[in-house]
C-alpha cells in the first residue's frame, strides 16, 4: 500500500523535504498557498554571505523537485481531521486529501515595521524595510530617495521587531544582522561615495563566513557600525530622516540625518502556522513559534505522532539551516512511515 505525506508550505524547507522524501521512495503532495513554490527565497536578490544570486538556489531546489513530487499551488487547508493513524485534510478548493504523515513547513512572516511607530515606516518618505531594499536590488530599479535623489547617507536599523519587548518579540531573528551587513556592502558597491551606517546592539555573526563579511564591510567598504538602538526618527523639511540614538560607546546621545533608512525587519510566526497548530493541538512556545518534541534530539518531530516540523515554523532560520533541517525532517518522516 502506498503511504502518503502531505507537506504544507512550498518554501525552502517544504521543497527540500519533498525532494528528499521522493528520493526515499515516498509519495509526497506539496501544498503551496501562492501561485509558485519558493516562498521568501523568491524575494531575494543575492544571498548572504557570498552574495550569490538567490535564483541559483531556487532553481536548484526547483530542478531537484522535478516531476517526482505532486505540487499543488494556490491551496489552503481549511480543516484537518486527525484519524487514528492518518489525517484528513479539507482544502479551500473543496477537495480533500488523506495522508499518513503531515509536515508543517509554513515558514514565517516578516515583522510589520509599522508597529514600530517611532521609526515612521509608511509615514516618512524615506524609511523602507530590508525586504523592500532587497526587492529594489532584485528588480534592478534605481535606488534613490522618494524624491529621486541619490542617497548620500544610508542607515540600517538592526533588530526591528526583534529582541524587543515593546514589539512583543523577545527573540533574536538571527539573519537580520548578516542581511544588514550584506545590504550595506551592496549599497556601497552602488554608491561608493555614500556613508553607510549600521545601528546595532550586537552583531550576531553566527555562521561560517559571516564574521569575515562583517570585517570586509568595515575594512574594505568603510561601513560604520554604531552601537545603540535607534529610539526615534523624524522627517526633515527635505524629507531626509533625523534619527536619535544613544551612542553607547561614548555614553552620549547622538543625532544624525540619513537620506534613506532601512529597517532590518525580523521574523514573526505566520498566522497560518498558528491556525494549523491550533487544529492539530500542537504546543506553541512563548515566542509563538511551534515547539518540537525535543529541542535537541527530536527537533523535527512533534508531540503528535505523524506530524512533523521543518524550518521557520520553529523560529528564525537561515536558508542553509532550513535546508538541513528539512533533510532531517524527511528522514524522520521516512522512518515513521516504515513503522506504520
Amino acid at each position, binding site marked *: 500500500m502506498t503511504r502518503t505525506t502531505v507537506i504544507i508550505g512550498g518554501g525552502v524547507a517544504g521543497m527540500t523535504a519533498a525532494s528528499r522524501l521522493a528520493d526515499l521512495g515516498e509519495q509526497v503532495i506539496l501544498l503551496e498557498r501562492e501561485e509558485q513554490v519558493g516562498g521568501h527565497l523568491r524575494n531575494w536578490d543575492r544571498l548572504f554571505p557570498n552574495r550569490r544570486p538567490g535564483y541559483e538556489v531556487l532553481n536548484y531546489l526547483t530542478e531537484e523537485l522535478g516531476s517526482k513530487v505532486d505540487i499543488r499551488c494556490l491551496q489552503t487547508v481549511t480543516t484537518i481531521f486527525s484519524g487514528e493513524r492518518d489525517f484528513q485534510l479539507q482544502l479551500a478548493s473543496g477537495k480533500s486529501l488523506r495522508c499518513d504523515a503531515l509536515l508543517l513547513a509554513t515558514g514565517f512572516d516578516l515583522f510589520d515595521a509599522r508597529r514600530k511607530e517611532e521609526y515612521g515606516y509608511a509615514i516618512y518618505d524615506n524609511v523602507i524595510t530590508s525586504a523592500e531594499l532587497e526587492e529594489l536590488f532584485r528588480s534592478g530599479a534605481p535606488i534613490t530617495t522618494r524624491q529621486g535623489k541619490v542617497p548620500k547617507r544610508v542607515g540600517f536599523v538592526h533588530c526591528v521587531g526583534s529582541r524587543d519587548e515593546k514589539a512583543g518579540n523577545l527573540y533574536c531573528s538571527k539573519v537580520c544582522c548578516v542581511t544588514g551587513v550584506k545590504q550595506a556592502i551592496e549599497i556601497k558597491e552602488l554608491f561608493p561615495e555614500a556613508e553607510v551606517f549600521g545601528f546595532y546592539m550586537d552583531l550576531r555573526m553566527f555562521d561560517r563566513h559571516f564574521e569575515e563579511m562583517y*570585517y570586509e564591510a*568595515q*575594512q574594505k567598504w*568603510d561601513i*560604520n*557600525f554604531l*552601537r545603540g538602538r535607534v529610539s526615534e526618527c523624524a522627517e526633515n523639511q527635505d524629507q531626509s530622516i533625523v534619527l536619535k540614538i544613544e*551612542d553607547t*560607546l*561614548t555614553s*552620549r*546621545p*547622538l*543625532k*544624525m*540625518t540619513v537620506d534613506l533608512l532601512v529597517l532590518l525587519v525580523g521574523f514573526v510566526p505566520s498566522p497560518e502556522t498558528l491556525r494549523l497548530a491550533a487544529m492539530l493541538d500542537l504546543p506553541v512556545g512563548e515566542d509563538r513559534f511551534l515547539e518540537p518534541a525535543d529541542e535537541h534530539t527530536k527537533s523535527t518531530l512533534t508531540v503528535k505522532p505523524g506530524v512533523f516540523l521543518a524550518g521557520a515554523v520553529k523560529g528564525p532560520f537561515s536558508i542553509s539551516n532550513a535546508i538541513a533541517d528539512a533533510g532531517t525532517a524527511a528522514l524522520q518522516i521516512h522512518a515513521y512511515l516504515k513503522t506504520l
Partner: protein
Amino acid sequence: MKEFGYTVHKERLIDYDRNDKRVLNHLKKHEPSVLTCIACGSCTATCSAGQLVDFNIRLVQTLLRRGEIEPLKKEVRKCMLCGKCILICPRGVNMRNLILAIQTAIDKLQ
C-alpha cells in the same frame, strides 16, 4: 544681554551632521586599520596609562569616528605609546600610529 541667574545648558548630544570629519578622513587614509575596530575594549583593559588615569584608548577611536575633536585632543595626550594595546587588539588596529596621526591631523587643521 540680561542675566537671569542661569545660562542655556550646552547639549551633551553628539551632533553627527555638524561634527568635523576631517581628522577621521585623514586617518582613513593614513591609518586605515582604524576602520576595523569592534570596540571590544581589550586595548583599554591592558592600557598602561589607563591603570593610572581615566584614559580610554578605545574611546579615542570612537570619538574620532564621531568627529568629536575637542575631547579627542585631550584624550590622545594621555597615551604613553607603550604599545601593549597593539599586541592585544583582535582586529590589528595600529593604535600607536592612530594616536600620532590624530595629532598630526589636528595640527594640520589648525
